[in-house]
C-alpha cells in the first residue's frame, strides 16, 4: 500500500483524488501556486507544499519542484491527475528515477500513445480499426491521397491531443494552406510540427472505453462512455453507457480497446477513444494514458472507485476485479460546469465565486474545486466543477441531473449551467441522437428563451441589493411617499 501520495494537480481533480486518499487512509500532499493558496485542494490535503513560479500554470508544470516537494514531504508516489504533467513521459521517467512511484503507465507507454502517429500505427498493427489516413505527408503525396480518399479531411498534430491542433479541410484548394498553418501551429503549441491527415467523419459519435491494466498484460475494460456533446472540440456532457449502441458493437469496441491495451502491456488507468461513424464503422482516435475528466460516470454504473484502483495498481497490488466481475447497471450522465458565456461563443469568463450552494440529493454527485470567494481568472482552465447524476434509466439520470442543475447556485462568474440544462431538455438529447456536431446543429434551439417577466424580476432583485436604491424606495417620509408624484 502507498503511504503518502503527492497530487501534482489542482482544482476539482486534486480534491477528488485527495478524497479517495483520505478514504483509503493514505496521507495526501498537495502542491499549490501562490494564487491557489486558499483553494479547496490545499485544505483537503494532510500537507501542502507551495510552488514558486511567475505564471500559475507554470507551477504545476514545474517537474523539478514537484519531485522535490514529494521528496521533501516524504511522499512515496505522485498522482498527476489529468492535464498538466499527466501525459508527460519525461516527467514519468524523472519520477521513477527519483525513486518515487508514478501513478499511471510507464514512460514508454506514455511516449507511444502521446505520439499520435505512432499510436495510430500501433493500433492498426493490433487490428484495431483506424480511419483512412496518411501520415508524415509530403504535400504532393497528400494531394494525391486526398483525391483518392475524398474530402472532407481532418489534419491533426502528431504531438497534439485532447482536441487541440486540428483543422478540417473541405476541398483541395484549401489543402496546402491548411497543412502549412497546421504544421506551424503544431510547432508552436506542441514543439513538434509533424501533422497527419485522416478522413473526416461527418456527424460522428465519440465513444471511448475505460481500461485498467496491471502492467503484466492483464487488462479489463470498464465499458464505454459516450462523449459526443462537444463545443470547441471539448466535451461538456458525457454519459455511460452510450445510448442506442447495439451489444455487438459495444463488444467490438470494448474488445478492440482491450486488445490495444494488452498489446501495450498497459499499466494503470487509460481511455481508448474511438470515432463511431453513422454507418456503424468505428475507428481508433487516440489513447489517453491517464484518468479522464469524465471518469465519474463509469464509477457510477459500475460502483467502483477508479482512483482507488489506480492507487492499488501503482502499489503493485494488481487489479481488484476480473472482467466477469464487471456488470454495469443503470445510467450515469455528467456535465462540465465551466466559467464561460455560451451566448458569446463560449468565451471564457472571469469573476469571483460570490455564492455557492450545491444541491444534496441521492444519485447526484458534485465534483468541484472551488470555494466561495475564490477568484476565477484566465490563469487556469475554465472548468469549475462537474455535476454527475445516476439513474436506473437514462431518462431518470437526465431528470436527476436537470433537477441538480436547476438547484445548483453558483453565482459571481458567468457559467454554462443554464445552457447545460437546456441541452439536457432537448428532445434529441433525450432520444439519444448524439453526434459531435450536435451543439452546433441545435444552436438555435439551445438559445435562452425570452422571459421578460423573469428578467424584470431578476433586475428588481438586483436593484434591491443597492443601498442607494433601497434608500430611495423605502426611506422617503410620509406624507410624501403616499402622495407620490404630485405637482400643484
Amino acid at each position, binding site marked *: 500500500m502507498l503511504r503518502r501520495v503527492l497530487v501534482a494537480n489542482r482544482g476539482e481533480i486534486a480534491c477528488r483524488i485527495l478524497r479517495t486518499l483520505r478514504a483509503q487512509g493514505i496521507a495526501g500532499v498537495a502542491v499549490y501556486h501562490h494564487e491557489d493558496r486558499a483553494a479547496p485542494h490545499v485544505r483537503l490535503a494532510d500537507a501542502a507544499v507551495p510552488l514558486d513560479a511567475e505564471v500559475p500554470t507554470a507551477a504545476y508544470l514545474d517537474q523539478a519542484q514537484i519531485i522535490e516537494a514529494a521528496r521533501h514531504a516524504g511522499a512515496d508516489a505522485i498522482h498527476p491527475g489529468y492535464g498538466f504533467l499527466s501525459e508527460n513521459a519525461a516527467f514519468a521517467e524523472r519520477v521513477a528515477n527519483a525513486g518515487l512511484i508514478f501513478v499511471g503507465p510507464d514512460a514508454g507507454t506514455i511516449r507511444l500513445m502521446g505520439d499520435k502517429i505512432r499510436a495510430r500505427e500501433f493500433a492498426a498493427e493490433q487490428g484495431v480499426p483506424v480511419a483512412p489516413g496518411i501520415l508524415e505527408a509530403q504535400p504532393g503525396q497528400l494531394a494525391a491521397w486526398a483525391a483518392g480518399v475524398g474530402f472532407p479531411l481532418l489534419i491533426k498534430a502528431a504531438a497534439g491531443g485532447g482536441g487541440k491542433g486540428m483543422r478540417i479541410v473541405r476541398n483541395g484548394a484549401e489543402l496546402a494552406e491548411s497543412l502549412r498553418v497546421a504544421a506551424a501551429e503544431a510547432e508552436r503549441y506542441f514543439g513538434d510540427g509533424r501533422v497527419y491527415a485522416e478522413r473526416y467523419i461527418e456527424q460522428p459519435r465519440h465513444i471511448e472505453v475505460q481500461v485498467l491494466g496491471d502492467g503484466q498484460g492483464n487488462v479489463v475494460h470498464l465499458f464505454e462512455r459516450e462523449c459526443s456533446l462537444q463545443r470547441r472540440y471539448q466535451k461538456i456532457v458525457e454519459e455511460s453507457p452510450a445510448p442506442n449502441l447495439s451489444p455487438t458493437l459495444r463488444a467490438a469496441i470494448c474488445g478492440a480497446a482491450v486488445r490495444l491495451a494488452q498489446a501495450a502491456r498497459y499499466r494503470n488507468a487509460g481511455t481508448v477513444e474511438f470515432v463511431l461513424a453513422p454507418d456503424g464503422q468505428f475507428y481508433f482516435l487516440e489513447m489517453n494514458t491517464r484518468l479522464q475528466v469524465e471518469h465519474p460516470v463509469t464509477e457510477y454504473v459500475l460502483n467502483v472507485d477508479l482512483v482507488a484502483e489506480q492507487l492499488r495498481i501503482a502499489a503493485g497490488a494488481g487489479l481488484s476485479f476480473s472482467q466477469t466481475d464487471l456488470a454495469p447497471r443503470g445510467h450515469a450522465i455528467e456535465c462540465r460546469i465551466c466559467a464561460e458565456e455560451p451566448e458569446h461563443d463560449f468565451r471564457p469568463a472571469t469573476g469571483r465565486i460570490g455564492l455557492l450552494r450545491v444541491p444534496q440529493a441521492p444519485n447526484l454527485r458534485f465534483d468541484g474545486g472551488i470555494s466561495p470567494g475564490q477568484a476565477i481568472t484566465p490563469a487556469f482552465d475554465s472548468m469549475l466543477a462537474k455535476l454527475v447524476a445516476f439513474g436506473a434509466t437514462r431518462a431518470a439520470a437526465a431528470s436527476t441531473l436537470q433537477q441538480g442543475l436547476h438547484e445548483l447556485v453558483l453565482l459571481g462568474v458567468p457559467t454554462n449551467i443554464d445552457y447545460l440544462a437546456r441541452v439536457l431538455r432537448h428532445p434529441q438529447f433525450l432520444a439519444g441522437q448524439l453526434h459531435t456536431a450536435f451543439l452546433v446543429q441545435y444552436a438555435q434551439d439551445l438559445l435562452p428563451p425570452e422571459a421578460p417577466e423573469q428578467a424584470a424580476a431578476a433586475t428588481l432583485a438586483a436593484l434591491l441589493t443597492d443601498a442607494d436604491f433601497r434608500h430611495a424606495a423605502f426611506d*422617503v417620509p410620509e406624507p410624501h411617499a403616499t402622495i407620490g408624484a*404630485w405637482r*400643484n
Partner: protein
Amino acid sequence: MRTVQSSVRTSSPEFRRRYAHNKALAQQLRTRQEAARHERAPRDLERLASQGKLLPRQRLERLLDPGTPFLELSTLAANMSYGGESPGASCITGIGIVCGREVMVHADDPTVKGGAWYPLTIKKIVRALDVAIENRLPVVHLCDSAGGQLQLQSQLFPDRYMAGRIFRNQSLLSKMGVRQLAIVFGHCTAGGAYVPALSDYNVIVRGTGAVFLGGPPLVKAATGEIVSVDELGGCDLHTRISGTCDYPAADEDEALAIGRDIVAQWERQPKWRTPEQSSEAPLLDPDDLYGVIPDDIKQTFDMREVIGRIADGSRFHEYKPAYGTTLVCGFAHLWGYRIGLLANNGILFNDSAIKGAHFIELCNQNNTPLLFLQNITGYMIGREYEAAGITKDGAKMIMAQSCSHVPKLTVMCHGSFGAGNYGMCGRAFDGRLLFSWPNHQIAVMGGEQAAATLVEVKVRQLQRTGADADPAALRQLREATLKAYEEQTSAYYSTSELWDDGILDPVDTRNALGIGLSAALNAPPGVPGNGVFRF
C-alpha cells in the same frame, strides 16, 4: 372625533352653478400656471440648448426623488408686474424630496431674461429662505442668473428685505446648522456669487458655470483688464485654485448626481412631531368643494364642508360648538398629525373672537399646530358691539394668535377683509405657509364699501368747505376706486405681489397642507407665553 356630516346637495341648481364657476376658475389657474411655467420665447430656449444647458424644470425633476411630490410656491409671482416680463418672477421655489430628505429648492430661471433678478425675484427668494429658516429645511440652490436687473436697482438693492437679505438668511441658516447646497449651472454674478459662496457645499459645471463678483465687462470697465468668463471665475479656477467651489462637474447631469450624493450624506433631521396615527383619505369627496364655494364674494358657506374634505377620514372634534358659532374651532388629523382648526362661518362677534382666543391657547397648551381657514369680511361693528368690547375681544384673539409658539398654516378660502385677516393669521403673522384659492379676494375692505366710504368722505369734505358735490366727479371717483380695488383684491394680484405662497386648486389643498405641515414640524416650537390680554 365624529365624522363631518355633509349637507351639500350635489344636484341642486345652486351647487351646480357654483361647481361650474369654481371649476372654471381652477381650470383658469392651471392654464395660467402652465403658461408661467413653460411658455418661453423660442429664442430663449434655443440659447439654452446651444449652451448645452438643461431647462430649469428639467434640472428640478432630475434633482428630486422620482415618484415624490413637489409643492411649488408662488408659481404666479410677478404675473401682474413688469408687463408680464418675468413669469414666476424668474425663479422656481418649492418644497420637495431629495434623497429622502425634505428640502427647499430655489432655482433661477435662465429662460427669462437670462435669469436676471427682478425686485419680486428677490422677494420670492427671500421668502423661500425665510420658510427654510422657520421650518429648518435644508436648501438646494440651482444657480443660473445674469445678476440683478440694473434698471430696477433701487427696488432690489438698498433696503432691509432686498438682495442683502438673501445672504443674511443664508448665513443664518448655516449658523442654525441647516445645510445648504448650491449647484452652479450658469453665472453667479455680483451678489449672486454669494449664493454658492455662502452655501455649505457647492458644485460647479465646467464650461458654463461661473462665479465672480464682477463679470468680464465690469472688470474691463473698472481696471481695463481683459479676461474671459472661464478664466475669471470658471470651474477650474474655483475648484483647483481659489477653492471657492467644492466639486467640479463635467456636465449638468453629473452636477446633479454629485449634488444628490452630497444631500445623501446629510444627517436626517429629527422632527419635533411625528404622525400620531396612520393617515386616511377623507370620506367626503374633495371634488365637491367646487360646488361648496360660493360664486359671490359676499356669500358664506359652512366651513365644516371644507374641514370634512381636508381632514383624515373626514373626522372632526368640534370645540365649544354652541358658543361663538360664527367661528368653527376644533381638532382633526391631517396626514396623521393632530391639528387645531379655526374656520370662519360668518363675521367675528365678541363671543367668536374670545372663543377663538381661548382655542388658540388650548392648542398652544396641547402643542397642536394651527390651521386657519379664512372667509372673513371683518368684525362686527356698531355701537352695541363697541360697548360690549368688540375691539378688546378682537385684540385678545390677535394677541393669542400672534404669541402662539406652535406652527401656523393659513388658507384663504374666500374673502379676507379688514381686521378679520389679522386675527385669522394673515400674512403679517408669520404663518409657516399661506395659500389662497382662485376665488379669494383680499383688501382692507370690500370695493363697494371702500368706494362708498371714499365718496362719503369726499362729500363731507366738500360740505365743510361749502362747495357743491359734482355728481360726475363723484361717479368717477367711485368707478376709479372700484376698478383699482377689483384689480388689486384678486388672488392673482395677491400672489403676484407674494402676499401668499401660491394659489391652490381647492382639491390640492390637503396635499399642500400635508407637505407644509410635515415641513413645519422639522423645527422645534417657539417659546410659550402670551402678552397681556386686555380683559
